[in-house]
């Protein structure tokens, strides 16, 4: 089929382009300008060239935070994706249980991020928190303020509690859209429960799983509020992720030049990963 190309239609997106210009492009250009200069305030700047970029790229602190961020994203994906599929597979498809399960699953997603952090900060405390008191009661030495491993476990549990529901809801939507005819054919062939999952449900879930992985990866890679409220990046720097480190550098130390350079590098990494995921998603659509 021959398409009709009418470039005048681009004028229709002009308002959105202006909005993006003011909300994203101009702030981004300002950050780029800051990243090549030094300032001590009062709108006075000194040219620094690529010095801040070199400093960030050769900084152990940056790569440590990057490593922690990647490890965090990998761990929560390894837990949330299989767990979300498992819960979605076991949710009822009809009856009164459906709305009940959907509401229960949606609840964690409705809680603001700083409130989730506060809930888990109190929940994990060994003096007044339910989790901390119970673990102490059964003889487990748990203290997320003092022990890096405990801090990591708490932050990961918090993220799993908060965001597995999103994976569940996406997978559930994918599962209910599979026509009954597929299951009837599988029953006639005497397919096992695992075979139905492997050859019918999993392929049909591929698109929603790609979206779920993309959303969860990007969100966990940019996570700030929840770990900041619970651990403040500690103990030491053990839960200092890239965004927390960036805020410490920009707001805490007022190192605006290095912070701007770090923002640009962080932004480019996020942009690259988003593009890779987007390309994978759309190329699968092409195959279909």
């Amino acid at each position: 089929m021959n398409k009709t190309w009418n470039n005048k239609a681009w004028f229709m997106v002009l308002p959105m382009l202006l909005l993006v210009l003011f909300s994203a492009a101009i702030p981004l250009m300002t950050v780029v300008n800051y990243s090549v200069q030094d300032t001590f305030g009062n709108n006075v700047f000194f040219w620094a060239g690529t010095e801040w970029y070199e400093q960030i790229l050769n900084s152990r602190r940056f790569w440590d935070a990057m490593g922690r961020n990647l490890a965090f994203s990998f761990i929560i994906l390894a837990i949330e994706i299989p767990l979300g599929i498992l819960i979605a597979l076991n949710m009822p498809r009809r009856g009164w249980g459906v709305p009940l399960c959907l509401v229960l699953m949606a609840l964690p997603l409705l809680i603001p991020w700083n409130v989730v952090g506060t809930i888990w900060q109190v929940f994990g405390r060994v003096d007044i928190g339910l989790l901390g008191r119970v673990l102490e009661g059964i003889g487990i030495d748990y203290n997320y303020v003092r022990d890096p491993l405990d801090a990591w476990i708490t932050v990961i549990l918090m993220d799993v509690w908060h965001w597995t529901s999103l994976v569940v809801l996406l997978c559930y939507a994918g599962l209910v859209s599979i026509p009954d005819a597929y299951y009837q054919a599988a029953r006639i062939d005497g397919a096992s429960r695992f075979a139905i999952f492997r050859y019918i449900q999993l392929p049909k879930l591929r698109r929603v799983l790609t979206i779920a992985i993309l959303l969860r990866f990007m969100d966990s890679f940019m996570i700030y509020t929840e770990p900041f409220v619970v651990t403040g990046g500690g103990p030491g720097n053990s839960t200092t992720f890239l965004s927390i480190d960036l805020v410490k550098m920009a707001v805490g130390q007022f190192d605006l030049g290095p912070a701007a350079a770090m923002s640009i590098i962080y932004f480019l990494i996020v942009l690259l990963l988003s593009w890779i995921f987007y390309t994978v998603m759309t190329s699968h659509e092409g195959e279909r």
Partner: protein
Amino acid sequence: MNFSWMAWTLPTVAFFGTIFLLFVGMSIWEYVSPGGNPRFGILRFETTRGDRLFVSLLGSAFIHLAWLGLVGPNLWWALAISVVYAIGVFRFV
């Protein structure tokens, strides 16, 4: 209108000016030859010329960062590699 709060410098004006001119050039190209010239290149997924510009710019940014981190602050060689890379992307991707 005062833009001093954006802390402009001559090199950053030149940088964004070049990107703006690239967008203008791509728009003219699209007006002259509409459709974006979609094709399947060596990466085995469909790209339009806008996609190829995006891949070129993003790749060039990483080439410059890699050069800064691994070699040093003299970025002329990184720029030359980026131009060769962009030509390769527009030719083969």
